[in-house]
């Protein structure tokens, strides 16, 4: 039998306010197999951890139970503590007497105290049966997959490759560049996006570490952090790649115009969206950069820009702000005015959100230098009349209705996730939010990681973003990948299933049942074997096995029975 030490935490008043910790410590002292017990104000503090280390050394403990908060909180802390004292970390367990005891029994100290003693007792039994385990080492394929060859994906690819690691860049379209390739110029400086982009594309295509797969799509994703197996289909041919990390950079689409029926949907050729206007302004676009009405090719003299055409509109569009429209609309209006100086540009807006370095000054320039007329109000309706597009709106600053007979109407429609994003998210087993954008692991502290280990996010697939933000995120995701690749090895929790080959009949039921493809029947021995790095310790195979040949390490049947008996005995 092990010599187990029990360490009871007060958690300030969180536990001690409801549970009589001294009585608990006293009771555990005489518990069978407990060699030592002590209570302390905050066991997770440095002096608290020192108590544990000292006790292990002085009293020769070979098992530790910390009675404290949920193991989700500090199990890892205390396992590190015992490891530092030379004990196998898997011989340390946490008994949760806070979330599952003191917090839920505030009005009954007597019963909470008895319950705490029972909980700790079961965990003592568990520790008696625990085996010392060693984390599983997982190989790292030091090669990254980047999905999406827009500016975010290009940035991530070039940064990872610059550190000397191999990159597979998968792009659905024929060319790299994504949405940025469709734009005319950038805001603030009117730099040609074609020039900016060609530099980036050059860097990526010239780099020998980067394999660019265009007209290619991810078909299936298996494996896990460090060892993903990704099937990529390129023009009908499938090929499998082994990669250690994946960066998702699938970008955005625009909200479909036809859903905005009050603005004519798709009915009127002279009502276009922001991207269509970008194509028109672009020297490589259909009009070679000249602004023309799509209906008859005339030069528009009155152009109305409608901001928030579907954004910030939970009834007819999406609730969120698309973030970049205030800026690109100002840019587009200025580019129009530079081309047609005698023309009039109107911008209907709800608020102007110019949140970036130099952004506010830029919108001011649109108003003051380029005489773009900003009207604070929404457009209610657009319809054709006498060869023009009638725009009905409100100017809420003057309180008046506004009617403009426009030649061209440009709708700043919302940015929405790429149409294929949801299917890809399912393949990657990555969560998406209510709108279909990929969910980050933490909105403040882990903005470029997904909750799936080894899958990172960059650019507008996560939320609306402009070019500098997409570049920032591409670089940040690359840094995450590089810090993973620079580790010598990565480890996997050893709490996995194991098979008693004496009992296994090789029926294969567990192979069917396993959701992680972590089992197979060995071709020679004909019994089930566990692919330990794939096993997530879910326990499905244990329940399924008719011979009880499967067990989960440190959750063995005898162990669980002993815990239950401890409960009944208490």
């Amino acid at each position, binding site marked *: 039998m092990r010599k187990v030490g029990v360490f009871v935490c007060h958690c300030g008043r969180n536990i001690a306010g409801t549970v009589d910790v001294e009585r608990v410590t006293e009771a555990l002292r005489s518990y069978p197999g407990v060699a030592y017990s002590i209570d302390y104000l905050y066991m997770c503090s440095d002096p608290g951890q020192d108590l544990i280390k000292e006790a292990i050394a002085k009293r020769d403990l070979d098992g530790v139970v910390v009675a404290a908060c949920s193991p989700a909180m500090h199990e890892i802390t205390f396992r590190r503590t015992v490891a530092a004292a030379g004990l196998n970390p898997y011989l340390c367990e946490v008994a949760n007497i806070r979330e599952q005891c003191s917090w839920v029994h505030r009005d009954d100290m007597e019963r909470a105290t008895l319950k705490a003693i029972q909980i700790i007792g079961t965990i003592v039994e568990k520790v008696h049966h625990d085996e010392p385990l060693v984390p599983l080492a997982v190989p790292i394929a030091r090669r990254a997959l980047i999905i999406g060859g827009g500016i975010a994906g290009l940035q991530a690819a070039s940064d990872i490759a610059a550190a000397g690691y191999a990159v597979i860049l998968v792009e659905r379209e024929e060319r790299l560049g994504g949405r940025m390739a469709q734009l005319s110029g950038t805001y603030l400086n009117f730099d040609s996006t074609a020039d900016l982009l060609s530099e980036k594309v050059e860097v990526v295509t010239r780099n020998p570490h980067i394999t660019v797969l265009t007209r290619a799509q991810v078909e299936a994703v298996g494996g896990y952090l460090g060892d993903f197996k990704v099937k990529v289909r390129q023009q009908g041919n499938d090929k499998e790649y082994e990669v250690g990390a994946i960066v998702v950079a699938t970008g955005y689409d625009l909200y479909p115009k036809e859903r905005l*029926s009050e603005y004519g*949907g798709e*009915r009127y050729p002279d009502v276009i969206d922001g991207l269509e206007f970008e194509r028109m302004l672009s020297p490589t676009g259909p009009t070679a950069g000249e602004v023309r009405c799509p209906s008859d090719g005339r030069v528009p003299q009155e152009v109305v820009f409608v901001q928030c055409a579907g954004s910030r509109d939970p009834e007819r569009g999406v609730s969120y702000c698309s973030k970049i429209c205030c800026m690109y609309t100002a840019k587009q209006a200025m580019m129009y005015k530079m081309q047609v100086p005698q023309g009039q540009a109107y911008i209907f807006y709800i608020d102007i959100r110019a949140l970036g370095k130099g952004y506010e000054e830029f919108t001011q320039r649109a108003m003051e230098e380029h005489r773009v007329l900003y009207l604070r109000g929404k457009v209610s*309706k657009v*319809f*054709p*009349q*006498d060869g023009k597009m*009638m725009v009905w709106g409100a100017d809420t600053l003057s309180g008046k209705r506004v009617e403009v007979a426009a030649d061209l109407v440009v709708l700043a429609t919302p940015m929405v996730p790429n149409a294929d994003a949801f299917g890809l998210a399912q393949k990657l087993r990555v969560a998406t939010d209510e709108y279909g954008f990929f969910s980050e692991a933490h909105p403040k502290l882990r903005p470029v990681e997904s909750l799936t280990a080894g899958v990172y996010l960059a650019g507008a697939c996560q939320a609306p973003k402009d070019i500098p933000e997409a570049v920032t995120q591409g670089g940040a995701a690359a840094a995450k990948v590089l810090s993973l690749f620079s580790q010598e090895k990565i480890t996997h929790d050893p709490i996995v299933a194991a098979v008693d080959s004496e009992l296994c009949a090789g029926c294969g039921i567990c192979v069917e049942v396993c959701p992680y493809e972590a089992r197979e029947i060995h071709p020679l021995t004909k019994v089930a074997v566990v692919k330990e790095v794939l096993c997530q310790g879910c326990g499905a195979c244990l329940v399924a096995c008719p011979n009880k040949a499967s067990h989960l390490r440190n959750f063995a049947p005898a162990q669980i029975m002993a815990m239950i008996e401890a409960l009944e005995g208490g």
Partner: protein
Amino acid sequence: MRHLYFPGCTLSTKAKGFAASGEASARALGIDLVELSQWNCCGATFPLAMDNLLALVAPTRILLNAQKEGDHLVALCSICYHVLKRTNRLLREEADKREKINLFIEEEYRGEVRVFHLLGLLRDEIGFETLSQRVQKRFQGLKVAPYYGCLLLRPFQEIGLDDPEEPRILDDFLASLGCEVVEFSHKTECCGSYLTMNSSEVTRELSHAILRSALASGAQAVVTSCPLCQFNLDYRQGEMAAHYPGFAQIPVLYFTQLLGIALGIESDTFGLADHHVDPRPLLREV
């Protein structure tokens, strides 16, 4: 099938042709409209103030009477439909207001009756395809502008009959009668409504914009389901010629008048002669 029916004041007085054509057409289609044995005016406006509950007493009484005689109620007039439907929803979903109104009328009504517009019944119970097969005289080549106005569709969350921005119901109905339905920009704009009483110039201007848009789209007639819209669009045309040079007159019909004629019913009672702009020459033509 028997349906309880609320004609409302205007259909019993100024718009008798709307009522007669609607009732006869419904009967021909197997919809037996049985008039409520007791009814009063619906109030003809749904109050804009949230606490003006007194204005809801009249429609509540109508719904209460309907509950005593059946489980649903059909209206033809857009305004009656609008007021009854919204009042009913409020009584069903807003407990505090329901309690106050019930205390006032000293009876208990909880919004159980279901309120329908005849157009909704035609679409959902008969079906426009079936209706099309029942048509005896098709209006081949008649270009019509389906005019919805405001109250038949809005607010969508409470009425829910059709998309408030891009409605189809009247379009599809008219197409099933063989009409050529024109697309026009002002199909859901306001005609000026009650401003016709004290600011008739506003009504004239708004109604003119609607007719102008219909005419520009090539329409030969405008079709509506609201007696007040019909009045504003039709009667105010008398002044329009003087104010808007080049204005051409256009008949404004109730949807039931076209339905009755299409079903082969004798149109003597349809009030066609009472219109300011006589639709009969056009109807004879097609």
